[in-house]
């Protein structure tokens, strides 16, 4: 999907996605981390349940919505990956309190 041009470079940032460990690198957005980890789908839509993934990477398309540390509908391309972050892909509508 997306590969790192310089494999050994940069400090690793360890987070989890749906409970599974994922290694990003310092400076990645959460969206970049997902793509680098080969995670193809980040959510299904609230309208029809269609699979979606990051499209524009600049905060305009609102496709890269994921739950980060228990808070839903975060634009993954606008959030920097931090160590220990718990990212969850989303299914349909956001839940109250999440």
């Amino acid at each position, binding site marked *: 999907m997306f590969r790192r041009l310089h494999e050994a470079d940069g400090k690793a940032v360890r987070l989890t996605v749906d409970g599974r460990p994922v290694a990003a690198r310092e400076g990645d957005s959460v969206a970049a981390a997902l793509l680098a980890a080969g995670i193809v789908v980040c959510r299904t839509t*609230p*309208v029809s349940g269609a699979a979606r993934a990051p499209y524009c990477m600049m905060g305009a398309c609102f496709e890269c919505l994921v739950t980060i540390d228990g*808070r839903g*509908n975060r634009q993954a391309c606008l959030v920097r990956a931090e160590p220990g972050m718990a990212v969850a892909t989303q299914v*349909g*509508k*956001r*839940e*109250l*309190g999440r």
Partner: protein
Amino acid sequence: MAGSERRDYDLAVIGGGLVGSAIAWGAARRGQRVAVLDEGDLAYRASRGNFALVWVQSKGLGMPEYAAWTKRSSDAWGGFADELRAATGYDVAFERPGGFHLCLSETELETRAAVLRRLHNQPHMVQYPYEILDHDALAKRLPEIGPAVMGASYCPLDGHCNSLRLLKALHAGMKSEGAAYLANRSVEYLERRAGEFSITSASGELRAGKVLLAAGNGNARLAAMVGLKAPVRPQRGQIIVTEKVRRFLDYPIATLRQTDEGSVLIGDSVEEAGFDDTVGLGVLSTMAARAVRMFPRLAALNVVRTWAALRVMTKDGFPIYDRSESAPGAFVATCHSGVTLAAGHALFLAPMLAAGALAPELAVFSARRFDVSQAA
């Protein structure tokens, strides 16, 4: 479109909002040849900015006939929605689970209870049940309410719908009944001439046997041309819309509801701002703060949209239904509850217009009531 335009209609409806289109659909179903004239894309259009409530409780203080008319429409709403779905295929998501008016202080609760008491004590007031609930009783039905909610009034007759789909369904319905929908036809002038009405817009002249003014705040200007009075003024209301969220609220609340699509709509504000339909952060903030006090878990939801719309408000807040004396065949219909009254307008008012006369029970809604109070 121009090729199929007929010069002669039984009824020209000026205004394609919820009032105009409900009546146009009803009249077309009665065999009337109807034309609906509407403005362009950026018109004020209260029909695009309402709260979609089909609401009974607390209406009619000062005019019990309005309470009766409202209840009659509300009771007919389910059948109206069914007929619309059968005719157009559109489900307007009408639900009537009852509705709440939440109070965030003892004073608000006491005031609310007093208002409803006065309403129901009016002579000739139509009877229907309602309850005043304290926090604990309320929490059983609305488990998400926060500790700041003191209580509420509840009425089992209240409900809501998808009002945008309602407008679309009415437009589809009237079109399939052969009504002509003429957009970008802002009416400049109309007059009665040789037993019929001549209506002039930038696109030319149209003639009809009868005319109904349903142009919202535009009625004030048009009314005088055909011997009617429509003393209405714009009254701004602002609304907040959140992102879609899983269903947590099964009842409409007077100032907050969850749509069938999942978004949460938050109102309710009243400002005398003339024709200014821009939003203001202070009002939006106040509404948001109340909403979060009512339902604390809404706090983290994203606001994706806001808007302001101009209600069409009469001096006493009650509708005007009138027939012109000096220009027989000219009518006016205006109200600020175009959603609640849509059933009444389509099922009861439209046949009256088709027949060319308003029923006596609507005489109380004539604009002549404003003359009386001025003389007094």
